[in-house]
Every structure is written in structure tokens, then in C-alpha cells.
């Protein structure tokens, strides 16, 4: 079986743009990018499903707080990610398998760092 990648849920307005503008697009191969219109769309069940299906981890990449085009999407996402991590803890899994970060569309370098980190830890 093919080894599954970390799933990166990206907000179309911020982190996805940062991903599109990566100077080294090959970094994107480290993760499975799933574009969401806004992180407000992210569902706890969907994140858990990713882990259930064998993805080693989930990255939730939204825009900086107070910078959500849809006003409250990232705030809601923060709460939902908190709950996912709590559930993981209860299930006995490492909570850090689900991580959240806030990237603007200009933060390609930060995204690159995150992706490089993933590549390194996998190597």
C-alpha cells in the first residue's frame, strides 16, 4: 500500500495562495493539499476521518486571525481543532498529529518551512 501523506487543509484565500506561490513546488509533494473555501468549512469528523483512513497527520492552515475574508471562519476552526485534539487525547493518540497554523497568502516561506519540517521528519 502506498504510504499516505499528511493532509493539509488549506484556505483558498490564504494558505492555498501561499502554496501556489511556493518557489519550490516539489515541497507540496510532502502533503496532500485539500482546498477549502474557508476554514469555517472544516469539520471535526473530516479531520478524524483523515486519521482514520491512515493519514499520519493533519495540518490545518488558515489565514491570520481577524483576517478571514469570511470574518469568523478561522476562529471557528481554532475551536474545532481544539476539540479534535482533545478527542485524540481521549482516544490515546498523539494530539500533535493535528496542527493548526495561520498563513497569509504572502507567507510562502513559512509554508516552505513547515513542509521542509515534514520532509525532514519523514526522512
Amino acid at each position, binding site marked *: 500500500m502506498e504510504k499516505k501523506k499528511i493532509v493539509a487543509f488549506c484556505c483558498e484565500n490564504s494558505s492555498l495562495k501561499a502554496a501556489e506561490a511556493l518557489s519550490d513546488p516539489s515541497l507540496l509533494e510532502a502533503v496532500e493539499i485539500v482546498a477549502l473555501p474557508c476554514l469555517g468549512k472544516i*469539520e*471535526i*469528523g473530516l479531520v*478524524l*476521518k483523515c*486519521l*482514520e483512513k491512515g493519514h499520519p497527520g493533519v495540518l490545518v492552515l488558515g489565514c491570520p486571525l481577524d483576517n478571514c475574508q469570511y470574518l469568523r471562519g478561522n476562529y471557528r476552526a481554532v475551536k474545532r481543532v481544539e476539540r479534535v485534539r482533545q478527542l*485524540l487525547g*481521549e482516544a490515546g493518540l498523539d494530539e500533535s498529529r493535528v496542527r493548526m497554523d495561520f498563513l497569509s497568502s504572502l507567507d510562502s516561506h513559512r509554508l516552505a518551512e513547515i513542509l521542509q519540517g515534514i520532509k525532514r521528519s519523514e526522512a
Partner: protein
Amino acid sequence: MITAVQKPFEEIYRMVEASGKLLILGCGTCVTVCMAGGEKEVGILASTLRLACRERGSSLEIEEATIERQCDREFFDPVKAQVLGADAVLSMACGVGVQFCSELFEGKRVLPALNTRFYGTTVQQGLWSERCAGCGTCVLDRFGGVCPVARCAKSLLNGPCGGAQDGKCEVDKEIDCGWQLIYDRMSALGLLDSLMEIQPVKDWSTGRDGGPGRIRRQDVEL
């Protein structure tokens, strides 16, 4: 609506770990509204359980389903096969639904995933609060529409206890003193005088204290 909260995960896990094939059954009415046992929570609990089982090396096969209401027979029809095929049902309904499901499927183990709490209202998303204690003899007419039985920690009918301070209950500072609410309301309604009346001892027999409740209405009986 009836409000409920999910049981601690560990308690649920221990309840179901030896079930073999488990059906998690959600309820689409009250517990969906209070976000404790609707389709979404069914999915979340199922995924969490699967992850926990994998992590702890136990084998549990989990199916998911949600029906409109678990307190009425007819709604179970679509999931009958699933229930019968499972070794146990983890019901995410209120206590009524859990028991009714259990009654319907003789010999099937039906387990509660929720702790049923009270009859209440959504004050705001994520905050629910009790309004009715189901005492069976409504007294709201005498208290300006605020129930002393449900909203006073001691169910006092003749005024607040000594512990209320700044409009909050001594039991929990987050809870409004029911008697403060009654006083405010009655004073706004110009009915303060009627608070002077001594409320006679209450007949509790219409509620829980009278034994399991039963209503029979012959006019609507078929």
C-alpha cells in the same frame, strides 16, 4: 427540548470495547439541536472510537446511523437490519431513546452514549439552560413565568434562600438566582403583592415522586 451531553470518552470506550459489532445510532431531534447526538456527533464518536480501538489493539467494527427520533417506533424501520446485525447499539439519544430502542429490540444490548440532563433552552450557541423540572403541576402563573421549582436550587416556593447574592445563586455564580428573576419579573408586571401570598406545600405526586409517569387520553386513543 431535552438536553444531554456526551459521556466521558473513557466510560463509553469501556462500555463498548467488547461489543464486537457496534452500531452507533444518532437521534435527529432534541439531541441534534443541543449538539450532543446528531449525525455529526455520531460521525465524530465513531471515528474517535475507531482510532482508539486501533491504538489500543482492540477489534471493534463500528457502523453509523441516525434516525429522526428514537422515541417513536416508526422511525426505527430504516435501521432495523443494522440494529439486528449489530452486537450492541450505542444510542446517542436521550434516556428515552436509549430505553425505547432497547424495548424495541429484545435481547439487543443498547448502551447510552449521552448523559441526559434537563428540559432546557439554547441560551446561545453552546450554552443551554434548564427551564422546566417536569413536576407535573405547573405553577408558572404564580411566579411571573419563572419557575421556582426548576430555577431555584432548592425549589423554594416562598422566596429566595439566604444565599442569593447579586442576583446569582449560591450554588453556582454562573446561574441566575431564580428568585431574583421572579422578583424582577413580578415587579415589572406590577404583581409584587402576590409574592406575599404563602404558597402551600406542593403536590409532588404528579412528578417523579408519584412513580413512573403515565398519561392516558381516551379521546385520542385509537
